[in-house]
């Protein structure tokens, strides 16, 4: 599963098809299946959910319920770079909210949104488990620890 570092294809059709086939209509695997699609495609297109519904025999409404309930899923396309600002308790008391304020201002979006040029998607997370480094910002999996608001702004300039 490690090789699935795929650029966001417009539809991701084949890949999604393969993932769905892999689970052989096992309805109890629904969440695991959606996680895989999310990972391969970085979001869950409506067409894909319809296919999953048909293959697993699970009503679309139930799939929508799951896709909106869990944080891991996105029903809209996501930006090329994922920015996560940790707001776990340790980061909160060490100034995490100030990092978020600055990043929101620099990117011109709120947490949970994607920039119009599809460059960044900004998210907050509730603890990444590296509290010693707080406050922490993660961009595309790279951790930037003990970060100051000005430094956060610097870091984001390195991405295109």
């Amino acid at each position: 599963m490690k090789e699935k570092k795929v650029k966001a294809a417009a539809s991701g059709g084949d890949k999604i098809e393969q993932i769905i086939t892999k689970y052989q209509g096992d309805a109890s695997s629904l969440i695991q299946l959606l996680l895989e699609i999310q990972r391969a495609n970085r979001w869950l297109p409506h067409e894909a959910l319809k296919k999953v519904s048909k293959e697993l025999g699970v009503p679309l409404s139930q799939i929508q319920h799951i896709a909106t309930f869990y944080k891991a899923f996105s029903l809209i396309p996501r930006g090329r770079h994922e920015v996560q600002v940790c707001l776990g308790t340790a980061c909160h008391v060490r100034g995490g909210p100030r990092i978020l304020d600055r990043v929101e201002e620099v990117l011109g979006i709120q947490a949970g949104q994607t920039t119009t040029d599809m460059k960044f998607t900004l998210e907050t997370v509730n603890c990444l488990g590296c509290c010693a480094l707080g406050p922490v910002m993660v961009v595309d999996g790279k951790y930037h620890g003990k970060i100051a608001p000005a430094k956060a702004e610097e870091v984001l300039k390195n991405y295109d």
Partner: protein
Amino acid sequence: MPRINSPAELEELRKGILSKRDPNKPCITLCSGTACHASGSEEVAVSIEEEIKKQGLSGKVDFRRTGCHGFCEKGPIIVIHPEKICYLQIEPKDIPEIVSQTIKGKKVVERLLYTDPGTNEKIIHEYEIPFYKNQKRLIFGSNGEIDPKSIDDYLALGGYSALAKALFKMTPEQVLAEVKKSNLRGRGGGGFPTGRKWEECRNAPGEIKYVIVNADEGDPGAYMDRSLLEGNPHSVLEGLIIGAYAIGSHEGYIYVRQEYPLAVENVGIAIEQAEKYGFLGENILGSGFDFTIKVHRGAGAFVSGESSALMTAIEGKVGEPRPKYIHTAVKGIWDRPSCLNNVETWATVPLIINNGADWFRGIGTEGSKGTKIFSLVGKVNNTGLVEVPMGMTLREIIFNVGGGIRGGKKFKAVQTGGPSGGVIPEKYIDLPIDFDELTKVGSMMGSGGMIVMDEDTCMVDTARYFLNFLADESCGKCVPCREGIRQMLKVLTNITKGKGKKGDIELLEELAEVTRDASLCALGRTAANPVMSTIHYFRDEYEAHIKEKRCPAYVCKELISYYIDPDKCQACMICLKQCPVGAIAGGKNQIHVIVQEKCIKCKTCFEVCPSRFNAVKKISGEPVPPPIPEEARIIARKSKEK
């Protein structure tokens, strides 16, 4: 890899592994847990491998990437065995020296050692560093010695011997009796006696039963389960298999957050290895007992860590809780008896089986036996994971193990139990920590998060923070939780914004009571704890916010202002240049003034003002002094005059 068919074969295998290992051969262990990884341990690993080759030591020195050592503050960490020389905050550039000096020359590299902040003394060995010295690392200790991807490392330390003992020398009833006698209580939060839960599940009617590892660690600020599962996955598997044997279950699940990719990976590898050796699958160790494990990744919902919600999620549905008039031990996954325990609880089981219940009962307090891993984080010097015997006082944990408060600030409170817990003020600093004592002071053990707060932490803001978290995470199924949390959050937000009214505190108390009494699951029933405990111990802070519109800790943005003291400002331009919104007026030789209308209160000016000037002040509860007139702002500097 041979399949093992009896305890004798297991001991043979262990002997074989040990015979190939020379205890005197130098071994470099490098912490590769998540925090050290984030601090660059992989780069260090690459350079260790290169350097060993370069200096012609291939085969003469072992190198191991291990799980979390716990001392995250000082990562990446290297420990060199057998002497246990400990080097901290290692960078790739330090490696050539370590290899040539310590491995080849048997000399210690002084500058990389731990320096005691009190005495300035350098400490060589890991076990002498106060952070480690004051702990009792029964469960977590092996983390630093084994490569989590190597089952042989686990076996070399005696791994799976408890399983062999349980399967061949004990009946399931005896295993159950031993765990009951040990008085082990669930490490995930509530502290329910593990043995009783097992017994209930064992006695429940039904052929098919499940055992589950709850690794859906969602408390913000707690990460011990992650480190255990990442660093020593076999210890969790071994505990689970023993539990399954006692309960009479043949299928197990590990429910782990997908946000923990390394834990998912390592536990997957561990299961594969255990299957190959015959610790999992059919006829385990030739005992006739069958057991298999599946990994289920959680998709990110705090409430799914609740037992009934977690089981619903395993069924592939939305992880919402249900009323538990009938325990999940009787009706859990697909309405079958299901026994769920936390990662740390399962990892404790092999120790109890190997050493006996009496040994375990010898550690801890009357009501809480054994040790507990805490994640000691926040405004403390030694952030990290610490394992201490139950009953250790807060003072010992925070000051002896944790090294005291950062930056010499004043200790204010410690928050335990995550969003379900409460704050414990300074007056209880000598409180012995166990399940019951924490509950008595209005908090709870929870999974073991311990967030240290200093004088700069606002208690109203802390309550608001947790309620905001819970408002996001409440599944909305029952009204008291959904609405109770929302309304409490609304009142708290108003207070932090300076819109607090008389009667707000009483309203919060009323809402808290109803939410606590009427909610469906533990999330709602404990949601009021952060509010109740902060009101109880820090009512004066609430009153300051409401009556004086003052935030005593200078945290709540709407209630504070920054002001540059004209008598102290030396017009150094630092704050002026760094202000992200250009809210500081002034220039060279011209005293700086904050334009209050533009200021976004980001605190940058306060932080960058050189301490020798100390000109930026925080103000709350009183008006900002008017800016000094333009003509008075010029600073005449003698040195500039010619």
